[in-house]
């Protein structure tokens, strides 16, 4: 009886290897092969053609717009995320718990729905949009609208990374700093930031990846004007619908490349965070 109890589920080699085999096959079929195929298709008409596809006027514009959106979204959500995490972990106020829950809304809502909501509010017939139209400000079907929905969709990433970490670290170190005479900015710069820097970078990497690749919300508010409001992901779809399969895969290979870089950076940051969380183990190895 005693011996049988120590047997755990999956201890039989048959079960173990069947599961591992299934996992490998699934990964190959669903992740690796599609990724390889993207590059295969992109280069199917030769490297010269690939280069021509990328330097095409409209593709270049789409790349530029995508970079602009990411360049605006990331700093906005960086500041917003830090601010929000600081607020909910350092202060007690009514509605604090509700706020932490509300942060997740962009994750819970489908991006298309988010896009439609923005259209409803800021479109030319919308509540705020009609007023803006009278004052000759156009947000929807222009790049500001694309930035707005991207900010909305990606806003939880930084805050979600920071909140648990800052909760765990507590505020004692900051209190020690302020007793020693540090100003608010010095506290943030010298105590808070060094403690959260890797989590912050992690959040930024995720925000950036999502901002570059966002499709649903952007497609609703952009209006798909080629050479004007087309981001890279929208451009890929447009090329594909034009039966320019090689061109669309060439553009897709750019996004896939960004994804690969993201994964590498993400693994590095994760490794650094693990090291920071277990400084004792690391140091005793070093001595």
């Amino acid at each position: 009886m005693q011996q049988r109890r120590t047997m755990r589920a999956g201890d039989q080699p048959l079960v173990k290897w069947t599961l591992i085999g299934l996992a490998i096959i699934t990964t190959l079929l669903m992740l690796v092969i599609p990724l390889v195929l993207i590059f295969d298709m992109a280069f199917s008409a030769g490297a010269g053609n690939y280069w021509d596809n990328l330097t095409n006027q409209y593709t270049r514009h789409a790349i530029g717009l995508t970079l602009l959106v990411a360049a605006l979204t990331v700093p906005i959500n960086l500041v917003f995320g830090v601010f929000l995490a600081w607020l909910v972990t350092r202060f007690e106020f009514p509605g604090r718990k509700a706020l932490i829950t509300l942060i997740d809304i962009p994750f819970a809502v489908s991006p298309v729905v988010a896009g439609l909501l923005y259209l409803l509010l800021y479109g030319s017939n919308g509540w705020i949009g009609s007023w803006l139209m009278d004052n000759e400000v156009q947000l929807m079907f222009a790049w500001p609208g694309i930035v707005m929905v991207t900010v909305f969709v990606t806003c939880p990433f930084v805050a979600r990374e920071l909140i648990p970490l800052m909760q765990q670290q507590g505020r004692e170190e900051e209190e020690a700093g302020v007793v020693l005479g540090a100003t608010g900015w010095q506290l943030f710069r010298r105590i808070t930031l060094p403690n959260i820097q890797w989590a912050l970078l992690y959040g930024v990497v995720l925000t950036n990846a999502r901002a570059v690749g966002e499709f649903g919300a952007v497609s609703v508010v952009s209006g798909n004007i080629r050479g004007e409001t087309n981001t890279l992901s929208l451009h890929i779809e447009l090329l594909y619908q034009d039966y320019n399969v090689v061109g669309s895969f060439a553009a897709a290979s750019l996004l896939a490349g960004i994804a690969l870089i993201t994964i590498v950076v993400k693994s590095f940051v994760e490794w650094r965070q693990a090291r920071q969380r277990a400084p004792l183990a690391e140091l005793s190895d070093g001595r």
Partner: protein
Amino acid sequence: MSISIEGITKNFGSFQALKNISLEIPDGQLVGLLGPSGSGKTTLLRIIAGLESADEGRILFHGEDVTRLHVRERRVGFVFQHYALFRHMTVAQNVAFGLDVLPSRERPPAAEIHKRVQMLLEMVQLGHLADRYPAQLSGGQKQRIALARALSMKPQILLLDEPFGALDAKVRKDLRRWLRTLHEEFHFTSVFVTHDQEEALELSDQVAVMSAGKIEQVDTPQKLYAQPSSRFVFDFLGQVNVFRGERSDSTLRQGDAWVRLPDAAGATSLQLYMRSHEVRLQTTPAAHAHLPLRIESVSLVGAEVRLELSPVGWSSEEPWEVGITHAQFNTWQPQRGDQCFAVPQVAHLIEVDAHTPHTLRWEAGEMDDPAAMI
């Protein structure tokens, strides 16, 4: 620098943490705030530092109102319970932090900061650890670094929150002695929070005993121990032996046991509180008290032999504890199960449901039969 606390009240939601607290801390004193957890002592310390704001009342440093002064401007040294060292900085960077964040016109040159830090580290005898990170230090070392950091800005007031709470007994004793020396050397005013009565009594010039958001008593350790002003202080400070009984005329009686009171007090339901050194043991009852006890255990460790005793023919909530000298122990040779009698020399009378004790002393003539005394 003296500290005056005037009518401080603090609420957390519906919980009243401090109820109209007033306390004078003279310049250069080491004062302990002692109390069980939840008594408000840490809250009071944080209000003195400015880390928490009071709902009502004032804090004065050297006669100057600092209630509205930001914690940054109060220039106190604060030692946190869990050290709160900056984990991403070396020991030297930790100690230098206060100097580093000074505005540039007040900040000493880097070489001088370095020298000051070295001096502070030497003072806490950890100069050789300057380049280590907090995670590489033991608890006692961390605490000393936290102290060096708190003293780096030459504060005239040092506040310590359960400074030795998380350390083992041996390290705690060393650090206590060392804090006392440091205090005498630098002559700052210190307030420390503790729930350890031994620590409070050993370290402090004065101890403020707190309970449920109020100060029960402020006195020197000697007076606090010898003349507790309330039942709470009595119970909280050290072991106490209790005899509860009903008075008729001048005799307090419960079961087979009785004590003759020197003066007849008013109420009938009474309690006698006795510290272990205020009771003697005899093999025969005395004329003024008949308190039979059985020896339950004998502990030989320490300066005196401690006997744990249980009542015979009467009852008490807690077992009694009495200390006898090793010499007495050698002549008497008490064994577990032996019977003896307690003879109170001094006792503190508290009426049931009353708050303040009344001290009783028996004259030598009333305590007869010296031959029976051990």
